[in-house]
């Protein structure tokens, strides 16, 4: 490529020198016209240089302001949300976070129900997605034939590309009946009577609920966690893996005892990234979580998450209800911001270890 560059530059450079503004070929330096031409030429060059400096300065400031737009947007989001949430926070105080109440008519609100629903559904999603993502990452990096890696990797990433509203429709119309018949009924008959965990599987069999939302969410989050895990597994130095193989380790042992400890920071970062996404997901959860403003008392009972309460109630909210919804949005943004920051920091640490 550098050869090509040289071949490209040389004729261009020659042409530039050829086009050097000279009035005649036999002009001597003593000739008065040559001196004037030279001065004019230098002045011309200076003005061109000044013009270019100005253009560069404008370009620099323009691009800088555009890139600062993201920071400004973030600050704006925090300020706007907090400002609109202030009436609720001043009325209820910190007590708002664990107040179990959602009375629109009497304007008594508490974030506890929504927070519990959000955390539970996201937690279930992570519990399901973590081992699946780990398995997918192990398969893609260790056992998969090389020619199959890219198509399968793309297929998993297509799971991430599917819009969330389609997951919601899938969950409501297709998954819910199947889940009700083939998962909820057996779970309730098998484990419903057990002493310690029976209460988890009680409640009406509707096909919706916290567990359903968790399962649908896990498939949304799965590709992100799998992608991060696969990336960090791939940057494990080959010499570590080769030496383990050389000692006679099986593939599974190499993964568990060599790759996983080396990449554990990145793996945890990927898990937190998935958690951050799961916490903020709106449409898929709204379709299947059941939207009941009460604390769930089993895995099958309907609940609500912060995002779904926003989606459902914002259209017709007024007064303190309106401010409370902004307060919920503010809480959600803070929670996801913290989780995603930690995730990013952890993943960055792994990248630095690679020497990137």
């Amino acid at each position: 490529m550098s050869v090509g560059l040289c071949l490209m530059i040389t004729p261009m450079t020659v042409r530039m020198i050829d086009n050097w503004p000279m009035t005649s070929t036999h002009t001597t330096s003593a000739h008065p016209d040559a001196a004037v031409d030279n001065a004019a030429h230098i002045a011309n060059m200076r003005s061109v240089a000044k013009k270019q400096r100005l253009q560069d300065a404008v370009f620099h400031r323009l691009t800088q302001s555009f890139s600062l737009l993201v920071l400004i947007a973030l600050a704006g989001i925090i300020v706007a949300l907090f400002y609109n949430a202030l009436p609720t926070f001043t009325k209820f105080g910190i007590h708002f976070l664990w107040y179990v109440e959602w009375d629109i008519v009497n304007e008594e609100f508490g974030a506890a129900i929504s927070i519990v629903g959000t955390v539970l559904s996201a937690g279930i999603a992570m519990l399901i997605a973590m081992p699946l993502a780990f398995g997918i990452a192990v398969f893609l990096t260790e056992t998969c034939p090389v020619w199959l890696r890219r198509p399968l990797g793309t297929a998993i990433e297509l799971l991430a590309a599917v819009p969330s509203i389609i997951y919601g429709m899938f969950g409501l119309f297709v998954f819910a009946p199947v889940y009700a018949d083939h998962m909820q009924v057996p779970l309730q008959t098998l484990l419903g009577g057990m002493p310690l965990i029976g209460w988890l599987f009680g409640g009406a069999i509707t096909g919706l609920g916290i567990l359903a939302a968790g399962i649908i969410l896990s498939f949304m989050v799965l590709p992100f966690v799998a992608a991060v895990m696969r990336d960090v597994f791939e940057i494990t130095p080959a010499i570590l893996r080769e030496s383990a193989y050389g000692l006679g380790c099986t593939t599974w042992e190499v993964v568990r005892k060599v790759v996983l400890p080396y990449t554990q920071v990145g793996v945890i970062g990927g898990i937190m990234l998935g958690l951050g996404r799961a916490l903020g997901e709106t449409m898929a959860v709204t379709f299947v979580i059941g939207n009941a403003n009460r604390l769930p008392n089993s895995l099958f009972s309907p609940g609500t998450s912060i995002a779904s309460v926003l989606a459902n109630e914002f259209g017709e909210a007024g007064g303190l209800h309106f401010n409370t919804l902004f307060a919920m949005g503010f809480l959600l943004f803070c929670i996801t911001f913290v989780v995603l920051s930690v995730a990013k920091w952890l993943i960055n640490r792994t990248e630095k270890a690679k020497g990137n």
Partner: protein
Amino acid sequence: MSNLYQKRKLTNLVGLTLSMTAMAIGLVALFWILFVLFSNGLSALQPSLFLNDTPAPGSEGGGLRNAIVGSLMIVGLSVLVSTPIGILAGIYLTEYGDSSKTAEITRFVTDIMLSAPSIVLGLFVYSVAVSTVGHFSGYAGSMALSLIAIPVVMRTTENILRLVPGSLREAAFSLGAPRWKVSIMVTLRAAKSGVITGLLLAVARISGETAPLLFTALNNQFFSTNMNAPMSNLPVEIFQFAMSPYENWIQLAWGGALIIALAVLLLNIIARVVFREKVKV
């Protein structure tokens, strides 16, 4: 001794089989969703879908023309806005900012905005662009979508521009080109296909977003090209129709979902397969 070896071999076999099962579960989920989409939505893909407007509650037939047109307009405006902003911001991060503190913080915040809950962005745009003017608008919807698209374009542009070899830039500098010309006419041109990939991925991302449009562009039952008023759009229509009790509404919702899914998947496959050498995903 061989007993221990047998146990290790068994553990290996079980572990690798479980990981293959995990992969199979992921693929099954993908194909199940696609199958459901196609089987339910294909019957709705008739010319009437594109020629009629959304039906009133209880009335028969109808189509999604106003929703499709509205979505095209909102997404189109958003792409028009976020493309120059995102690309120029990406150029700044690569060429000028490189390792300065501001650039580090900007990259950090960009990555967080990539995964931030989109409904919160909708709330923000509501408080800034809707409650201030007193009515919903397609412009507010585009603004919300741009807030999602700009970080995507920034990130992919920056990643691509980093791959351009420094010798190309230095050759242009040595010829006396001003810095802005080098950035735009040399570096960006060399990374053209990668940047287009980033744009395609951003478009795919925002075409499917529902939550930001819920409180900004709202929805419109009628055909309208007025961006300064509530505008019909495909995702919110699907949301409204799917949760309704009307049969033709649910059928239209499946049709709309199929259209969105086809567009998104097509864009993704084009971006990842056709331009695969130019981007590291």
